[in-house]
Each structure stands twice: as C-alpha cells, then as structure tokens.
C-alpha cells in the first residue's frame, strides 16, 4: 500500500470528486458561468483540505453540460491552492489522450504539489471526447487496454521501448519530468459490472469502482472478481488498493438529505443521460444497504462502515456537486464530512499493527 501512498493505519481515506459538470441549478433555473464553476472547484478543494478530507478529484468530459475539459489545468491550479490534500483525476479519459502526455502532465502536477498527484484512468461513459478528439469508438475496448498498459509501463520503467497499434512506437524513450518519488499512484476506473474489474485485477492495477446506487452487495462481485483476477495473474491482491465512488449528499436528517439532493440528481441525470432518477428508487437510499450515499450523517457513516466490511476498500470518493448543487450546500456538506463523518469512519477502519 505504501507504494500507492496509502497508510492503512490511519483508516479509510475519504475524498471528494467532481466530473466538472456544468448544469443549471434546478431550484433557481439558472446556471453559473463556466468561469465561476471552475473557480469554485479550486475553492472547494481548499475547503476540503481545511476540513481534513484526504483527496480531491476533477474529471474530464468533452461535451455540453461540462466545464472541466482541461482537467489537468484545473488540477494544476488546485496543486498551487492547497498544501496537503491528494490531487487526482476522476477520471482522465485515457482513450482519447496520449499516455506519454498524460504522464508528463501528472508528473508535473506531482512536482508542483510536492508528491500529491494521482491518475484515475477510464474509458469515459460519454461519446463527446471521442467525437471531438477524433478517436474511433469502434476501438473503444482495445485502445483503452493498450493505452493503460503503456501508461503503467511508463510508471514502472525508466526507459521505454514499446510498440502498439494506436500510438507511434517508443525507442528507449525517457519520459520527463519524473514524479517526485519516481512513481505515481495510477488507478483504473471501473464501472459496476465485474468484466472491467477483472481486467483491472488481471493488470495488477488499483481499482476505482463506481457504486452509483442499488444494493451495495451487488458490487461485491466486482471486488471479489478483481482480487481473484489479480491473484490468478501473480499479483498480491492485498497490496492493491481499491477505491469506491458514489454520489453524495449529507444533511441533518434523512428526509432533509433526500429533499436537498433529489432535484439535483434528477435534473442532472435528465441533462446528461436523457432520463431522470426514479423517485421510488431514490427513496430506497435511506436503507443502509443501498450504495447511493444520501442521508443523515449517521446513515452515511453506517453505509460506509457496511461497505468497508463488504469490500475492504482503502478509499471512498464522494461526488457532492452533481446537478448544479450550489456552493453554500457544498460548504455544508464538507463541514459535516470533516466534523462528523471522517472522524467516525477513520476510527472504525484503522488497521492495527501496520
């Protein structure tokens, strides 16, 4: 775990992340400017750091309703604005980028931030990046596998000699600058079902698993399949970190949380997926066994500890700004995370004797 800058003796890490979505606030019917949205991301990262949150992530999507296309630039600004919080992508759509360039960018962020940068590399669940940057969706599977393997190789070797189908070959290439400790934590972004988790395990790369909703138990198959695939391929599964992610909203009571979150989740899904979030399904999130992180602080703590028992993950990443949640509500969420949730979950998830 040390290799990935994770200290399990301190308990589970808690992070915040944003997709950088830029959607109108359904309660006011208006949308802040892209400039304000981007500046608020930087400001939220500072508040997160002050609240004792461990990680802050920004992702990229290249289409309507998003503002963080240049997520590495925003992460660079966050590196300057903060001092100790870890900085990650959430996620980098590696398939449309050059792994060499991605590594250069994140190594630079790592140096700027004194060793706090990480990459979560994914395929993307929207087509905008592929269309805009000219990558053929026909190659969706192969291109990602190839590029992630190259990124991992760059992270592990000093000189790279490599040949593939989707990028020019590399001959004894040195990728510079190198990150602070010569190594970056690089995670594979994984959707719910086991197929992608198995690929991550097979590659021996840390897994960031989305658990957006539904029974938490359902995602255990992916966690087990990941560890099994890692072991089968000669990796020590216990040395590979797992992170989980979910939409998140905490308030003083369950009802207040449901009322506060529903308009945002519903209109957010409507905007980016073309179908809202069914109320019946949303109502079930007040059960601790449901993965969606919406509720009172007591419920959130119960959910996280239950999930930690199920998955044994090292990190949880909360998406608190989806669907135009305004800044004042974000501040309230961060305050409750820092004051109540983090102390409780860390206390109960500390690994002794490490």
């Amino acid at each position: 775990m040390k290799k990935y800058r994770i200290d399990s003796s301190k308990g589970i890490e808690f992070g915040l992340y944003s997709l950088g979505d830029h959607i109108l606030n359904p309660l006011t019917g208006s949308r802040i400017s892209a400039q304000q949205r981007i500046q608020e991301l930087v400001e939220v990262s500072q508040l997160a750091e002050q609240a004792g949150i461990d990680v802050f992530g920004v992702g990229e999507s290249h289409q309507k309703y998003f503002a963080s296309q240049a997520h590495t630039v925003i992460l660079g600004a966050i590196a300057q604005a903060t001092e100790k919080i870890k900085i990650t992508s959430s996620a980098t759509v590696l398939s449309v980028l050059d792994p060499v360039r991605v590594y250069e960018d994140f190594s630079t962020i790592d140096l700027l931030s004194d060793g706090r940068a990480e990459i979560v590399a994914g395929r993307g669940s929207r087509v905008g990046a592929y269309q805009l940057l000219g990558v053929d969706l026909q190659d969706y599977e192969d291109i990602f596998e190839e590029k992630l393997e190259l990124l991992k190789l760059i992270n592990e070797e000093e000189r790279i000699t490599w040949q593939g189908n989707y990028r020019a070959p590399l001959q004894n290439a040195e990728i510079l600058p190198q990150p602070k400790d010569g190594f970056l934590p690089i995670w594979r972004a994984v959707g719910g079902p086991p197929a992608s988790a198995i690929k991550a395990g097979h590659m021996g790369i840390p897994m960031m698993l989305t658990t957006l909703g539904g029974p938490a138990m359902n995602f255990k198959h992916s966690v087990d399949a990941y560890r099994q695939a890692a072991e089968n391929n000669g990796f020590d599964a216990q040395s590979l970190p797992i992170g989980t992610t979910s939409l998140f909203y905490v308030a003083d009571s369950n009802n207040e949380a449901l009322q506060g979150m529903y308009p945002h989740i519903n209109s957010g899904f409507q905007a980016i997926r073309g179908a809202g979030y069914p109320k019946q399904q949303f109502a079930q999130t007040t059960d601790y066994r449901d993965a969606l992180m919406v509720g009172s602080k007591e419920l959130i703590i119960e959910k996280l500890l239950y999930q930690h028992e199920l998955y044994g993950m090292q990190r949880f990443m909360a998406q608190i700004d989806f669907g135009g949640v305004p800044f004042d509500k974000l501040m309230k969420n961060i305050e409750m995370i820092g004051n109540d949730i983090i102390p409780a979950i860390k206390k109960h998830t500390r690994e002794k004797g490490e």
Partner: protein
Amino acid sequence: MRIVILSGSIVGTKTKTAMLKTEEIFLQKYPEHDVQLLDLADYQIEYSDGRNYIDYEGDTKYVTETIMKADALIIGTPIFQASIPATLKNIFDLLPIHAFRDKVASIVVTAGTAKHYLMAEQQLKPILSYMKAQIVPTYVFIEEQDFLRKEISNDDIIFRLDRLAEDTVTTFEAYEAIRIKKDEAYGF
C-alpha cells in the same frame, strides 16, 4: 397528455393506414391532448451504436427525443419474418433501457394473415415490459382483408381502435394518479 403514434415500418401501406386512422380517432376523441404521428418512413434514422440517444443528431435525435417526451405511445407494427421489423427494433435499441418508465404503450399490429397472431404477445410485449412500459393488455390485430384501397373497411377494426384509444388514455390517467400519489408520499 402527450400521445405519440408510431408507424414502425418504412415500407408498405397497411401500418401507415392503420396509424393514420388511429391518429384521426385520437384527434377526434381527445382534442385537448397533444397527438403526434411519427411515420418512420419520413425519417432517416441511424442504426443504434450504443451511445445515449441525446448524443445522436438529426432525425435520429428528433424521433428518439419525441418518443422520450411522450406520455403514451401507440406502436404500429407490421409482421416481417414472424417478428417486428428491424426499423422498429432499432428504435428500441436507440433508447435507454428504462425508456418507457411512467409511459403507457399500446399496440396495433398489421399482417397479411393471422398466421403470427401471437407475435405481439411473445415478442413485442416482452421488450416493452423490459423497458418498463405500462402496457395496455388488449391490442388491435388487423389483417390484409380488413383493408380496402388504403382504408380500413372492417367496422370491427374501427370500433376496436376506438376502444384502444380510450384504454390508452384511461390507463395513463390511472397510472398518473398512482404516480402522483406515491410521489407525494415520498416527501422529496
């Protein structure tokens, strides 16, 4: 209430004729509702490639978005090779998995003979159920012999289409009332 009448084939005349008649009945009985006929023959629609329907352009985007905005959908289909035509299946493939949640779907089938009269039960209804539609149980099955020169000549068919229109609206109103009552109970 938004009612979309879908003519699911791009060839032939029977389904189109039946759906024009269905439109006429709806317009006459329910002038207060928003009724729109979508004849797939009028549009150039791409094959589904797995992306979200809102990410398509042109006719594909227009037709899928129109369907997604509907409260009720009257699906007209011929029978090709013992099944629905590829053009109609493509519409389902273009839409999200739960596209018909909170929507009512009704069915009108046209066919040369009665040979495949269970096609709607065995093939179309399972798709609509999977996509979460509230299905009007009875459908109207129209054979070649019920048509005469692009008109429906069998009065029984006219009566049955009339009842289908009523059942569609009543079913929607009933489910809408249930949905509103449930939503109110959630308190968010």
